[in-house]
């Protein structure tokens, strides 16, 4: 069994889907959380000078989605056919578009007024449009127990991570989307994920 070390900061951020995936796969790993002041020591060792990074027996992979997809494939949770894998990837990319829109106002907009405006547009217009698509796509998969096929894939894990972020800002945001809300709740009880959620450090992001 390879040894896994996940390097990131002390937060959920872009590493949480990988942590959730490792939990669902039942793979032990070292959850290295780097304090911001110590980042300059680590940065030159990372393939693209960024985190998260997954070290697999000395080989480093970066880019958060690539990491999570690798773990999913290693544990048979990436979709059973090429088409299932493509569907899972497409869902993950759709969720990623929402995560990037959030990052835009949370991390990259310094002007407070512009920040508030972008956040409003996100919750009033962008997110509802896409949650509508995601709800429909979920239901289209045999009623919606999972996004793809008949078992957990990285698509469900990435959705849980997005759901965590949006419900932290707007607790009732999934109200109009019953299947999405139910999926998030159900994935929280998935073996491995349930235990991780109970013990993971509580962080603001």
């Amino acid at each position, binding site marked *: 069994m390879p040894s896994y070390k996940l390097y990131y900061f002390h937060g959920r951020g872009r590493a949480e889907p990988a942590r959730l995936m490792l939990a669902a796969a039942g793979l032990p790993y070292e959850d290295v959380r780097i304090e911001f002041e110590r980042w300059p020591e680590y940065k030159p060792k990372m*393939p693209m000078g960024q985190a998260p990074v997954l070290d697999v027996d000395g*080989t480093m*992979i970066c880019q958060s989605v*690539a990491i999570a997809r690798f773990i999913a*494939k290693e544990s048979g949770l990436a979709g059973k056919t*090429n*088409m299932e*894998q493509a569907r899972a*990837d497409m869902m993950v990319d759709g969720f990623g578009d929402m995560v990037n829109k959030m990052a835009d106002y949370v991390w990259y907009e310094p002007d407070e007024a512009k920040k508030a405006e972008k956040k409003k547009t996100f919750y009033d217009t962008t997110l509802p449009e896409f949650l509508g698509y995601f709800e429909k796509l979920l239901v289209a998969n045999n009623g919606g127990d999972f996004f793809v096929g008949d078992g957990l894939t990285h698509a469900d894990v990435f959705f849980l991570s997005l759901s965590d972020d949006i419900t932290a800002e707007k607790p009732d945001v999934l109200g109009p989307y019953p299947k999405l809300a139910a999926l998030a709740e159900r994935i929280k009880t998935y073996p491995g994920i349930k235990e991780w959620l109970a013990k993971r450090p509580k962080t603001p992001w």
Partner: protein
Amino acid sequence: MPTYKLTCFNVRGRAELIRLLFAAGEIPYEDVRIEWDKWPELKPISDTPMGQIPTLEVDGQVICQSMAIARFVAGKAGLLGKTNMDQARADMLLDGGMDVGKLFTEMVMEKDASKKAEKKKEFGEKHLPPFLALYEGFAGDNGHFVGDSLTWSDIGFFNMMDFITAEYPGALDGYCKLNKVIDNVKSNPGVAKWLKERPVTNH
């Protein structure tokens, strides 16, 4: 043999990597191109999982998200990478490329002429050189990013540089291994044929 129908705007844009992969894999597909001004009327009646194109229809099933589609076609063309680790390496290099590609696209799409000139200078001086230096390090002496054979990561890099060198012609000068990657991709028979025959578009 499945039937493939790719629908995108009449540009290279987010579909070109997909088209290059179909070409490299010598996989026939229908290359449907929609003009910008027709999209508002077509959008409500089009089968788009997330209201966007490109989409790929495979024997009646429709998928969206250009990179998900590209990864699927790369798989069909045998260009994903041999092991899960190889595939992860290809994914990571493509994602890193997309991060820089996004900044490039923002520059190209900037409507204000003086802002665009500023962004062009910044991209060319601040973002592009470290990216190329980093990727020269990732490339093998054999002119491949992953293992010892062509993968979609080589083709993705070629495609991105195709766009970038249109704005920064000498960008790849001196990067031995990156130039080898470009040559390897261009000399793939399917790719060479597509490059000769593809519609010429501004983007």
